């Protein structure tokens, strides 16, 4: 049984079929209720998708990396240890890149706290080495850490993934929250459609009775209503998507102006927009199925 079937029901989608239900489309509040729900659903989905892409970006950029700090007041010994560690790690299997951070970069990093005169005083600054591992190279990080500690027992090792874990956990929680919100909105939209379908059944009771007496099947009668509801849901969905898109663009513009690398990583790539654009279509399909199920279940209670 086709959802928008042909067969004996094809006239129901024609002008003659549409005239069976007298009021035109967009005649009730349902399209606007759907528009509001789709607006909220798209915003929640956009937030979830943006956080998802941000989390993936954080994961690819920062996980599988460590920073080695060699703290030694004696600069010559510190440099020698750093050079040995760079040379040793460069030969380690599973290590993608080893780079000693230059004194200039460290000075720039510390400038907000220690001012511009760092290079002119005797304040000992640790040597820092960034190490990146080949993705999926199991055990490479452990081996590297062991080698570092063997060469410089007083070296400190910062695992980027470790200090990013709380942030990753927060992002994961927010993504779940966004997913739950999308599901709740979808459920609310489905319930709205169920109420609208029941109301339509009551309004058109006399027409349905006549149709039944003339030999209409439940599917034919359901098709009359589901087509109308699908049209309203599609309109409401597109309006909601449009309004939500405007809000997302505005929020994106604000985020870009913040200038933070971390916040700036919260972005919506083209694929995410594609997914958001599918939401009104998914909503229309959901509304159509909900309407059909409601009407057919109601009709089955009759002879």
């Amino acid at each position, binding site marked *: 049984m086709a959802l928008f079937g042909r067969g*004996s029901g094809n006239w129901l989608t024609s002008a003659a079929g549409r005239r069976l239900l007298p009021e035109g489309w967009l005649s009730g509040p349902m399209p606007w209720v759907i528009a509001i729900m789709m607006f909220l659903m798209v915003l929640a989905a956009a937030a979830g998708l943006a956080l998802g892409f941000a989390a993936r970006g954080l994961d690819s950029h920062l996980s599988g990396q460590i920073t080695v700090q060699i703290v030694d007041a004696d600069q010559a010994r510190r440099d020698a240890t750093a050079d040995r560690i760079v040379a040793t790690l460069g030969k380690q299997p599973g290590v993608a890149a080893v780079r000693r951070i230059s004194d200039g970069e460290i000075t720039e990093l510390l400038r907000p706290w220690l001012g511009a005169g760092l290079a002119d005083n005797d304040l000992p600054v640790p040597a820092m080495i960034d190490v990146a591992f080949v993705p999926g190279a199991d055990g490479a990080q452990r081996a590297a850490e062991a080698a570092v500690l063997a060469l410089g027992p007083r070296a400190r090792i910062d695992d980027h993934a470790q200090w990013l874990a709380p942030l990753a956990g927060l992002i994961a929680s927010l993504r779940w929250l966004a997913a739950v919100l999308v599901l709740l909105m979808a459920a609310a939209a489905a319930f709205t459609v169920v109420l609208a379908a029941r109301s339509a059944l009551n309004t058109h009771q006399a027409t349905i009775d006549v149709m039944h007496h003339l030999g209409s099947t439940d599917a034919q009668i359901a098709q009359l209503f589901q087509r109308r509801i699908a049209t309203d849901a599609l309109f409401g969905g597109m309006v909601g998507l449009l309004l939500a898109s405007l809000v997302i663009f505005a929020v994106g513009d604000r985020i870009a102006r913040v200038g933070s690398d971390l916040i700036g990583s919260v972005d919506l790539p083209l694929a995410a927009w594609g997914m958001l654009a599918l939401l009104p279509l998914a909503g229309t399909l959901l509304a159509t199925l909900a309407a059909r199920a409601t009407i057919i279940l109601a009709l089955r209670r009759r002879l």
Partner: protein
Amino acid sequence: MRPGAANIVQFENVGLRYGSGAETLSDLSFGLAAGAFYFLTGPSGAGKSSLLRLIYLAQRPSRGLIRMFGEDVVTLPRARMPGFRRRIGTVFQDFRLIPHLSAYENIALPLRVNGVAEADIDTPVREMLEWVGLSGRAYARPATLSGGEQQRVAIARAVIGRPEILVADEPTGNVDPDMAGRLLYLFEALNKLGTTILVATHDLHLIPRVHHAQTIRLDNGRLDNGRLDNGRLEAAPR
């Protein structure tokens, strides 16, 4: 031949009760022969409309057996009901025309429900409008039609699908005697084409006007096989 096998409708010990009240119909056993013409008479409250509801499949009986078109319709699966209903034409006492559709579209409805292609709808609908004398009112809505015109639209809608049996509930109740005679003429014409006709009526004067018609009289929910006021012996109801 098995009793009742040639009948298009066969009732055996049928009873109908609404809710927990007394039986509205009791112990009905009769048959309607294919191609025959019947009047169903009886006083108000005798159960005529309830009997018709059983025949046009708007109701299942509380007990007994009803066979239509050779099949038991009491236990007929609901999914098969539409196919059976398409073989039954029904003229309701209150017409039940769809108010926002024109006379033309009301009459075309059974054909569309039955899956007839749009290209094949216009000719039979126009013929039917001609047959009931409403060619000039094809696009009028029911609210703008007189009671008699609405009745004729209802009859045209009931017969356009060439049903095997036509069930009419007080079809002359809202029309003047002249129009009642014309409606009976329409029913006779359809009967000559082979359709079984069952007309429920209070108006006993109608009965002698259809010479070959048989009469079923209901009283207090039971069959009454006595004589009618016009003195003509009614046919044995089976």
